[in-house]
């Protein structure tokens, strides 16, 4: 392996380690807010109150863990698929440091209450500027490296990475346009109904272009890599890719069903949301037929089950989501705990399984070694699987109950339950949800330990290798 690669792999590793650190922070905050739901005494002071911590939780996990891992793994995939190092390795290294500074500042400013109050775009405008700079750095390196690639054909994963680069740029810049009113205060450029429409066009698609496109890039790369099975259908992946990239941008209004947003936008959003089942399941079917060529890989490759369960939750998620968009379902479950149940099947199921398995593959491969412990990885798998299912299922049950209690009326035409009567019914489910969170976090800590030990082992091997063959380079 050339020195240039080794240098770039250090950057990949830097992103992976950063993502892991932010994962621990974000998960602990997640556990805290899940406890605050039933024990308000855990709102210790202004900084740690639920309203601020919930934002910290989503931002640190979405942008710290999610985007951090995406940066690292995207660079790894790009280098492998273009058969060359990054075009601007030093720029990537600067990006790594800027990324960590940005997430640290996000953590502090959000805890201090500096927020734009736009879901998943809470960071105030100076941080938005930093994020745009980060994204340009990322775009230049990914697309630049692809342009000067040494492999003519662009593999599926590169399509998804390019769409990530483009999609996030468009979405993030438009939704964060604001009127600055101080160093850490701004007001959305858009007002009222229009503000809502822009935000959910962004909010839904940031899920699409951060938690779907790059994760699919990983799935299409690492599933064949870790099983040795080629992707079942190239043609299917082409159809699925273009229809997903096309369809996603039309769907955000399903977050605004029954709000004052003009009906035609809501309806068109719902229609395209239903359409989106097809491309999503295109990838699900492709994944299943791929592993279907040899199911024994589920036993023999410890990573296969992460990817197969991951794509399974992606499949469930992309049927549940469109179902929720239907007006008749939306009126029951919207605004209830069903929604966090839905979100966490995507993040704790699909995203976490795929990303952690990709990281296992990458850290071992970078050092030309094996994972520190497959046993620990298996324990990690089962714990996060159980933790996530406990979390999601309890939230679905209580969400339906909540929605039904809000809607129930008596024969006289009055409401059957007060709001508080509905709220207290959540408490047992909120306890169970926190328990699910604990199980999940234990699994994730095993993952963190396993990755760190693999890197330690890799570095020792590397040091040993150099000592043994100093003239090899």
């Amino acid at each position: 392996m050339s020195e240039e690669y080794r240098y770039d792999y250090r950057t990949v590793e830097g992103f992976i380690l950063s993502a892991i650190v932010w994962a621990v922070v974000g998960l602990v905050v997640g556990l805290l807010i899940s406890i605050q739901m039933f024990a308000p005494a855990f709102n210790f002071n202004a900084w740690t109150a639920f309203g601020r911590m919930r934002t910290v939780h989503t931002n640190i996990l979405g942008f710290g863990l999610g985007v951090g891992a995406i940066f690292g793994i995207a660079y790894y995939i790009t280098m492998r698929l273009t058969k060359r190092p990054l075009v601007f390795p030093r720029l990537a290294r600067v990006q790594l440091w800027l990324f960590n500074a940005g997430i640290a500042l996000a953590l502090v400013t959000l805890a201090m209450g500096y927020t734009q109050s736009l879901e998943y775009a809470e960071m105030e405008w100076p941080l938005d500027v930093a994020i745009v700079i980060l994204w340009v750095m990322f775009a230049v390196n990914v697309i630049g490296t692809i342009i000067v690639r040494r492999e003519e054909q662009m593999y599926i994963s590169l399509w998804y990475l390019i769409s990530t680069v483009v999609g996030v740029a468009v979405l993030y810049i438009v939704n964060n346009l604001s009127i600055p009113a101080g160093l850490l205060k701004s007001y959305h450029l858009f007002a009222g109904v229009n503000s809502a429409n822009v935000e959910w066009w962004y909010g839904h698609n940031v899920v699409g272009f951060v938690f779907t496109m790059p994760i699919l890039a990983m799935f299409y790369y690492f599933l064949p890599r870790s099983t040795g099975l080629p992707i079942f259908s190239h043609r299917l992946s082409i159809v699925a890719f273009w229809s997903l990239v096309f369809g996603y941008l039309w769907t955000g209004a399903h977050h605004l069903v029954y709000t004052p947003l003009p009906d035609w936008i809501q309806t068109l959003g719902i229609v395209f949301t239903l359409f989106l089942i097809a491309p999503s399941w295109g990838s699900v079917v492709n994944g299943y037929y791929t592993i279907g060529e040899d199911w024994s890989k589920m036993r023999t490759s410890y990573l296969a089950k992460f990817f197969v369960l991951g794509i399974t939750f992606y499949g469930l998620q992309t049927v549940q989501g469109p179902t929720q968009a239907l007006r008749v379902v939306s009126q029951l479950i919207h605004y209830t705990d069903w929604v966090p149940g839905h979100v966490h099947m995507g993040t704790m199921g699909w995203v976490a399984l795929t990303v952690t398995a990709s990281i296992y593959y990458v850290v071992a491969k970078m050092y030309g070694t094996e994972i520190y412990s497959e046993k620990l990885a298996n324990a990690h798998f089962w714990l996060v699987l159980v933790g996530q299912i406990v979390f999601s299922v309890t939230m679905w049950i209580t969400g339906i109950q909540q929605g039904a209690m809000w809607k129930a009326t008596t024969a006289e035409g009055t409401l059957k339950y007060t709001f508080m009567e509905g709220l207290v019914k959540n408490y047992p489910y909120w306890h169970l949800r926190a328990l699910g969170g604990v199980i999940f976090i234990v699994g994730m800590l095993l993952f963190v330990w396993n990755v760190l030990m693999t890197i330690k082992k890799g570095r020792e091997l590397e040091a040993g290798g150099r000592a043994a063959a100093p003239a090899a380079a």
Partner: protein
Amino acid sequence: MAGEIYKKPIAFTLLVVVTVLAGSIVMMAYPMMRPDMHPKLETLKPFTPLQLAGRDLYQREGCVNCHTQTVRPLKSEVLRYGDYSKAGEFAYDRPFLWGSKRTGPDLAREGGKRPDAWHLAHFENPKAMEPRSNMPAYTWLKPAKVDAAATKRHMDALGLPYTAQQIQDLGQRTELDAMVAYMQWLGTAVPRKLSGAVVALEAVNPLAGNPAAIARGAKVYADKCAVCHQDDLKGMEGAFPGLLEKDEFLEEHPDMADGAYFVLIYGGSDAKAIIGRKGEPGGGMTAFGSELSRDDIWSVVAFIRSERAKQR
């Protein structure tokens, strides 16, 4: 030909840009150019400096993470919260604060629903008003003064009208005052009206004198009414009227019928106009129509009547 695109990264990227923009233009950019995305009710008033300061605090504390501000046009929502939200109510909302989760109740129609004193006490300690509430106690709002200079800057950024006096007065107000002022602004662009089934003003209490009902009424009173009107029904000087003798309303209308009592408890301040009492700006009586059953309300009326009888 079609397969060539996967060998041409620049063309591929441009094609992705076009594909991404298609839906974005139809769903996000085009609607912006339509007037129905920029409606404004004539009754909608811009924020005063104190109300904007309160809204800034609502943003700072992340209230939007647990409270929505949009009443859906569903029967149960209109019953619970009031008239469904209109597009023209949000012209000054940058950003919109409709939220996506109702851990707590919707606040779109909160303005005027409860007295200021209720909010002041509730922010300090929600459990005092709702024992099983999971809302954090916002104890840090009361000791902090509103940042007048920042609020002025924010008013300027939004281009909202204000007077020098209003800004000067801000310095004396606490963050809690500002938050409550914002609460009382919410949803006031749409005139409130009583919704749902209400009895005739002259109706007679079907549970009058019923001992079981009086006992039930005492329990409901302790749960819902005593926070303001106090355990002894004597109220709190200057904030909540007593219900036994000093109620100004009773002085004006010594023979208030059971039905009028019912309507007052059901509709709160909104009912005052119907039964001939002037409503107070900035809140007054809480409406319990969405929280109590008919029998509960009649029981409370029976309980209050029996307590008054004991006084004589």
